[in-house]
């Protein structure tokens, strides 16, 4: 034994006892990991499960780095709150090991990323831990993730594919390379960037199809929304849908009219189609034919108050006016049937007390959970 240790004021036996105690405590901690993870996964709304989760987090954060894959796997199937608790535990473990200049389990974390059954955020966390210490990780891991279920990993892969496409010689080959990147892209900015590259080279991109915007609508209105009271008033179109009917509207009788938008981003401008109105409601209806029964997301961009029904079921209601808008602003989950599906929107304009509050419009698309467009089929 090192003489310096034997000269220390603490006897060797005490040092050994402390070391043993520390080792056994770590074993105990490791044995309890599933219970600690379960306690954190139990957190819910309104601080549900906080007391147990706070204790569990303190234990998890003391685990060795070899436990990182197990901690990250705790995110699988967990709610968004629990994912954040576990993410911070993983970050704390990682920081402690890096400060102590200990190695991280790079191989195990890379294997973890390869298993796409894990939670996308768990896999992203594993990747972000790896790149802290492994400069080559990006080029090794990212290029193969162009269709990854983690949209964050996929985004990096699309960026990589764009950079590669820029270096491809020959117009046709470059366009094909950009199209390959476009098939993976789900974020608006990347889709627009790739589209520009393709168009600059003489290629064509149909953004309406790329995003899957619904273009053909039947519209009726205006109904009264003075003092915003019409938003929760069920006018006839949301009680009994009949596209042949004439209703009493805000300024007289109104009946359904058809409209197909030609806007590249699928926007239906009601100020153009219906005319400008203050304190008004418009209903918009379309039919979506599906080859299968499946879960979908109806993704709405609308700067006005809005409601969305799918086959008569209210999916979302947002009584907000002129507070910005963007593609996919409101995402509503629903189930579509095989065959004919009815989609109904209510788009409410307020009384426009501010001069900048003029827009009355919407855009809607049907997607899977990753934002991949689901295109409706032709009427059978």
């Amino acid at each position, binding site marked *: 034994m090192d003489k310096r240790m034997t000269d220390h004021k603490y006897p060797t036996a005490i040092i050994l006892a402390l070391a043993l105690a520390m080792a056994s405590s770590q074993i105990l901690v490791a044995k309890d990991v599933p219970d600690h993870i379960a306690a954190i996964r139990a957190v819910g709304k*309104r601080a549900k499960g906080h007391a147990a989760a706070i204790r569990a987090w303190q234990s998890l954060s003391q685990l060795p780095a070899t436990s990182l894959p197990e901690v990250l796997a705790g995110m699988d199937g967990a709610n968004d709150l629990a994912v954040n608790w576990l993410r911070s535990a993983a970050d704390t473990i990682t920081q402690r090991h890096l400060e102590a200049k200990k190695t991280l389990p790079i191989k195990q974390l890379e294997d973890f990323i390869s298993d796409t059954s894990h939670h996308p955020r768990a896999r992203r966390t594993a990747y972000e831990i790896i790149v802290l210490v492994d400069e080559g990780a990006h080029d090794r891991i990212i290029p193969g993730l162009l269709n990854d279920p983690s949209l964050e990993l996929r985004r990096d892969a699309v960026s990589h594919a764009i950079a590669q496409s820029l270096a491809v010689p020959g117009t046709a080959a470059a366009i094909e390379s950009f199209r390959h990147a476009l098939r993976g892209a789900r974020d608006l900015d990347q889709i627009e960037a790739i589209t520009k590259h393709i168009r600059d080279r003489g290629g064509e991109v149909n953004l309406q199809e790329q995003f899957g915007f619904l273009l053909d609508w039947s519209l009726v209105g205006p109904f009264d929304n003075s003092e915003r009271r019409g938003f929760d008033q069920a006018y006839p179109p949301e009680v009994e849908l009949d596209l042949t009917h004439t209703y009493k509207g805000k300024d007289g009788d109104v009946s359904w009219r058809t409209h197909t938008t030609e806007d590249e981003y699928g926007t239906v401008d009601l100020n153009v189609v219906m005319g400008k109105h203050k304190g008004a409601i418009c209903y918009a209806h379309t039919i979506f034919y599906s080859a299968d029964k499946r879960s979908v997301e109806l993704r709405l961009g609308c700067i006005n108050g809005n409601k969305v029904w799918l086959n008569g079921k209210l999916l979302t209601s947002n009584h907000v006016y002129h507070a910005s808008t963007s593609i996919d602003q409101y995402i509503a989950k629903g189930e579509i049937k095989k065959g004919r599906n009815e989609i109904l929107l209510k788009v409410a304009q307020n009384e426009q007390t501010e001069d900048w509050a003029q827009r009355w419009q919407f855009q809607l698309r049907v997607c899977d959970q990753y934002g991949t467009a689901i295109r409706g089929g032709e009427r059978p």
Partner: protein
Amino acid sequence: MTYKTAGGFCVLAGALVFTVSLAGEDWRQFRGSNSNSSAGDSRIPLEWSENNNVAWRTPIPGKGASGPIVVGHRIFVTRSGGIKQNRLYVLCVDARTGRQLWRRDFWATGRTYTHPSSSVAAPTPASDGKRVVAFFSSNDLVCLDLEGNLLWYRGLALDFDKAGNDVGMSSSPTIAGNVVVVQAENQGNSFATGIDIRTGEQLWETTRGGRANWASPIVIEGPSGQPAVLMQSPTGVTAYEAETGKILWEMDLACGTIPSPTLAGDLILLNSNGLTALRVTKGKAKPEIAWTSNRLGMNGASPVVHEGKVYVLSGSIAKCADLETGELEWQVRLTGRFWASPIVAGGHVYFINQDGEAQIVSIGTTGTLVAENAFGEVVQGTPAVSGDAMFVCTDKHIWKITE
């Protein structure tokens, strides 16, 4: 005076004063520990450049309109990242060296749309000296200890359905004793809530007005000396008991939605009809209006109070008024658009516009623009001051300005 709450813990009434006196050189929340943006006699340089009076500058990730806070030798900063701004970051930087001590990452559980110029990380974090509470426009509320250990995490958008503001929300949290108070007012759903800082559990909640409001709550003393929280909105001003959420007093006084209230001794300054001062008198159930000046209107920045004067920014005109009377004493024309509230230190007011141009006005019987310095980067958050150093978050770095 102490009293026992239903939760079984004791609180020293007047905790605010106690905390502030201990805080010393800390800058623990939006506009400082006293919420008045005054750094007293701190001696901040009047001039700086890359090689002069910049102790360090440290890159920070993502976007953020929040300001830094200082606790001891630690600086805490919030940022948001990702193409959808759904990545939330809390960073701790060593005030002495600029070295990042730790960073914690989370994913937003609420809405993350904002105006392009803003950020999900717009509210400034707050600290009680032992913990840091970070609030985001997505209504995510994180509590960490000073070492970066998670204490609890709340997703308030999950609890208050439809609470969100697609322009972005910037109301900063405040801490009264053991209660974290947040104010979130939007068209969809508006609320304020008090949360136990030790557990993350909710002590109270109340519905707020249904208009977007970016102003922050401040801690005041209630009529019985109890810790209270003041909130303003277009429909009025309300004082809540911090521990229970009980309304202590309210006044039908239409207030602005961006500048925040400011406490100045026995006066409360509100962005109402320009600037309105309420006088709080011990033993009276509610304050009374002391004065109103429609010449002291504000746009984005909040009022600053120092040694009997109040300073406001009306557009790009800096104004000084007597705190007791509201009488305008002098004004100086500055340039640019301002989001960051000014700070007072060492006989000067530091105004930093959104283009990162710091315009420094000496204060006395008149105000004089004495120095201008350019960060060359966008500045939206209110600076923090600790000792003789000013900390400024830009869109790219956190800077330490000191001799």
